[in-house]
């Protein structure tokens, strides 16, 4: 029996604060003054962050690697014991700190961003509910508690995408997100059920300790990992379930930053990293993850090249970066995937909040073709955005460099082709990000009549903090190449079992880094020449385009394909069942039987005179007789 760590039971406070915030801001919605909800909600997330920090030190001081905090027995029947319990270990602590830390910054930013919205109180209630669910997701000590959070964040995502519910298109986007996630969730829940029948438990620690008894490639483990993967693909917007994420940009920008960039969409990566021991036993599934991740990374990056909506560019870039994280998972480098989750949370949240600041300043305009020249008007936003762009492009020493380089070198170890494809995707990323940067902040202002201005402090201070994290966040894990000791990866080792792989020699690694830096430099130069020197503005939507450009700017017609293959036939099937099967076959068939009976019934009907009192009388009399009968006989 592991000794109980003092104070570790405080863990329940971490999700409790945002839950409390949700209840207060939700129930007292009407009574709260403007801004009060925002302050309460932000304070709650900040408190969660502080408790998470305390837990971090408590666990470190105890010298143990993990602790389970059980609140109560949720479901306990016939050999199925599912406690409502939290697992505090290095992986969950990492995620908790990201969620509450970045989350608090985004909450604070939202006080400024949502200031003029009439339903700002509801907004904060839903944001807190999201934070609560997300914390359940990463803190759950078994798959079913994880699943509570998993579906909970899906719900909040639905609510917040459709936050401006007057617009039918936004509602459609919200519903699309929820349904696509639910498709994944069906796979996930089936996976949990297979897990249960295989291991007789759904608790992580019990499953992982039993997993050693299975051979690598055991069919049941492959089945489990594949089913869980379906869930992860839905939640983390991978091919083929990725089209909801770009549409999810219908939500307010802080929502995109928190849910659709920094936290929720990384849940799939978290879940697979959490299940690393199972995935190590399923080489087949890992190969599939590599293919899915790489394909998503490249296809989404390609689409990103031709997007002209500032948030859509970032959305596709998120899909693409999630693809890189999947690639890392598929390579068995789970910790590298989680490291990229961390740095990505910093720089992508920053990019979205920066975009929000720009949109705010442009009075709601999101088309980058109409922006330009904002560098001078909003220097703070510009510099923070620049930092994030450098980070996501993988320029040293910004944070993205360290995490992306880790993934690339793992890809190189696996195969040179994988490396070339992954690097290709990274170059495309660099190009579309600088395209975005140049079009928004350089050149001349193109929208007449707009008066862009720097955002208020409540928005810029979170930007500054996030840019510090984006710049220096990579130092969490300095590899041995730079005389570091890979702290982050080592930290995670107690919770995540990465597949063993050979280290690259330092000379090879330096060669790879220098090569890719050279290429990145060329890409940035090329982008500068196109969008700044020649000041080429992307064509209007209606202008004719070459075939490939057209294909890309129409997102490979994937949405259209889904409509044709799933949505339309589904509607058709629904009509067919109702009009043909139900109303032409089944119902008349029964009526036919009914009519025959009715002829008999017609005779009896003569008894009916339409007098209700008579019916009642007959009935009551009958029942009374019946009772008297009981008593007498």
């Amino acid at each position, binding site marked *: 029996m592991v000794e109980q760590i003092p104070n570790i039971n405080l863990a329940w406070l971490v999700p409790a604060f945002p839950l409390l915030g949700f209840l207060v801001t939700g129930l007292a919605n009407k009574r709260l003054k403007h801004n009060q909800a925002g302050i309460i909600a932000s304070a709650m997330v900040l408190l969660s962050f502080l408790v998470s920090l305390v837990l971090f030190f408590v666990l470190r001081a105890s010298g143990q690697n993990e602790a389970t905090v059980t609140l109560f027995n949720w479901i306990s*029947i016939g050999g199925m014991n599912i406690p409502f319990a939290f697992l505090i270990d290095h992986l969950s602590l990492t995620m908790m700190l990201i969620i509450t830390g970045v989350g608090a910054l985004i909450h604070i930013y939202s006080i400024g961003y949502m200031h003029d919205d009439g339903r700002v109180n509801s907004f904060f209630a839903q944001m807190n509910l999201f934070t609560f669910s997300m914390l359940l997701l990463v803190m759950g000590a078994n798959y079913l508690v994880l699943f509570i959070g998993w579906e909970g964040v899906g719900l909040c995502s639905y609510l917040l995408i459709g936050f401006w519910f007057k617009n039918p298109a936004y509602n459609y986007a919200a*519903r699309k997100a929820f349904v696509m996630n*639910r498709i994944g969730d069906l796979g996930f*829940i089936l996976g949990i059920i297979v897990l249960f029948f295989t291991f007789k438990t759904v608790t992580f620690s019990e499953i992982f300790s039993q997993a050693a008894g299975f051979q690598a490639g055991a069919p049941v483990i492959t089945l489990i990992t594949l089913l869980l993967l379906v869930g992860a693909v839905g939640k983390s917007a991978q091919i083929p379930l990725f089209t909801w994420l770009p549409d999810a940009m219908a939500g307010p920008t802080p929502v995109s930053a928190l849910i659709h960039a920094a936290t929720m969409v990384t849940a799939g990566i978290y879940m697979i990293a959490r299940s690393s021991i199972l995935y190590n036993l399923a080489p087949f599934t890992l190969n599939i993850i590599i293919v899915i991740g790489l394909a998503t990374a490249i296809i989404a990056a390609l689409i990103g090249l031709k997007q002209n909506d500032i948030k859509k560019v970032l959305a596709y870039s998120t899909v693409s970066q999630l693809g890189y994280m999947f690639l890392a998972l598929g390579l068995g480098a789970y910790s590298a995937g989680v490291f990229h989750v961390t740095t990505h949370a910093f720089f992508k949240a920053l990019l979205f909040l920066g975009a929000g600041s720009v949109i705010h300043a442009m009075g709601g305009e999101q088309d980058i073709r109409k922006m330009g020249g904002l560098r001078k008007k909003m220097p703070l936003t510009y510099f923070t955005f620049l930092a994030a762009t450098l980070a996501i492009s993988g320029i040293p020493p910004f944070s993205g460099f360290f995490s992306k380089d880790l993934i690339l070198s793992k890809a190189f170890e696996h195969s040179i082709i994988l490396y070339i494809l992954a690097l290709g995707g990274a170059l495309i990323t660099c190009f579309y990000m600088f395209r975005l940067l140049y079009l928004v902040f350089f050149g001349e202002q193109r929208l007449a009549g707009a008066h862009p201005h720097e955002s208020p402090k409540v928005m810029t201070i979170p930007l500054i903090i996030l840019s510090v994290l984006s710049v220096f966040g990579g130092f969490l894990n300095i590899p041995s190449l730079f005389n570091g000791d890979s702290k982050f990866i080592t930290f995670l080792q107690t919770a995540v079992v990465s597949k063993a792989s050979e280290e690259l020699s330092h000379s090879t690694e330096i060669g790879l880094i220098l090569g890719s830096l050279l290429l990145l430099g060329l890409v940035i130069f090329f982008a500068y020449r196109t969008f700044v020197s020649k000041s080429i503005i992307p064509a209007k939507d209606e202008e004719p385009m070459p075939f490939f450009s057209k294909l890309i700017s129409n997102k490979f017609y994937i949405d259209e394909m889904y409509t044709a293959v799933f949505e339309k036939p589904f509607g058709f099937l629904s009509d067919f069942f109702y009009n043909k*099967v139900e109303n032409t076959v089944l119902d008349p068939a029964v009526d036919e039987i009914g009519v025959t009976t*009715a002829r008999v019934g017609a005779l009896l009907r003569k008894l009916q005179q339409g007098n209700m009192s008579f019916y009642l009388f007959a009935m009551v009399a009958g029942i009374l007789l019946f009772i008297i009968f009981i008593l007498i006989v």
Partner: protein
Amino acid sequence: MILLVILLIPFITGLLLLPVRNAATVKQLALASSLVNFLATLSLVFTFPVSGYSVSWINSLGVNFALGYDGISLIMLLLTSLLFPFIFMAGLKREQENTNYLYALILFTQSALIGVFLAQNAFLFYIFWELTLIPLYFILLLWGGDGRRNVTFKFFIYTLTGSLFLLFGIIYLYSLTPGVHTTDFSAFSQLNIPVNTQVWLFWVLFIAFAIKMPVFPFHTWQPSTYTMAPTQGVMILAGVMTKMGIYGALRFLFPIIPAGVLYWQNTVIILSLIGVVYASVIAFRQTNLKTLIAFSSMAHISLMVAAMFVLNYYALQGLLFQVLSHGVTIIALFYIVMLIEEKTGTLELPQMGGIKLLAPNMAILFLLVVLGSIALPLTAGFVGEFLIITGLFQQSIWFAAIGGITMVLGAIYMLYAYQRVMLGDKKVGFGNITDLKPVDYIVLIPLITIILVLGIYPQPVFNLVEASVNTMQNLLVPVADVLPALPL
């Protein structure tokens, strides 16, 4: 004795109400009696098990007036006595014609339902089974909406036909009992009927229950009946009557003709799963909100039927849990449907929209019920459906996968309906819609609280039915060897 009291409270109240002319008094008395009934039923939970009540009755036929219950009956009784107060509250502050008759009929229905769940022999069961139909028939016929004459007639004939088969089955079983004939369930279950007989007897007995639940393709009375029925009528139908079908099947089929059940097991499961998908797909394109929810209810019930025929531990636990969960959720849904119709004057989805702008609190409560209906974790629906899918999985992964499709399809049509009603911009002419009244909160908040509490802490319900489930799940085991091959 307490069983007799529980059985008679609604009936006697109904009788007393008949001459009362003041509508408000009628409603208050009915509500009060249903609350007393609920407390009396609840007392059974804490004194479980209470000895049955039995007096000899028709000696020549070997029939006693015997009441009793086990864990399964108890769940059904709890559901009934829990839902009826809400059914009565649904009428508070609303104009209704001939209130005294209506409420008397509802109370008679309640007594008959309770009788079904308490009956210890097939004869008594059958009498109560038929008695539920009569008051309900009048409720539908006299207080129903458009087309009530034809629809009610169809409903009546449909269910009556099923009942005739059941009656025949009961008489046949009766004739098989050795010595002095009897209709006691306990005697029926010791009959050891030849396997070949069980195979055909299965359908004779099952058809009545299949219609009541309903199971595909015996469901065609349901959508039109639900759509036309007055709110309180549809609440009884969807909330309790469907469970009566489930209860009947559990009582008659599994203990008495286990080999017949095993023989047809996969057939019925497949029919049910067809029903799940069929009803869910149809629901998506319905324009009438009430019809949409009727099909959604059919999908959920079909999943429960599939679970029943899988008959393993998890499926049964899930089924009985879902009995409660579905009852509470569907009542809340139909209450909201009523509110929407009152406020907008229509049930046609294309004519609605933007109500959230005018009635934000109603939108929130509606959404919460919708979430319960699509089985979001921490609602009761999730616990029930998770266990059911787990049980289905034990039989076949494909059963589980198809049953699980409700999770996806349910989300599609329920969120679609929610969006059409509540979201979007408000329609012209909806200007004077107001938000919920106090009475609406009194109905909806407790229902939603039950949905959430059962979802967060389901354990008491599991414990209540544990013993019965353990008995039940073993019923099919001894007959597994003697079974002829299924000609499929």
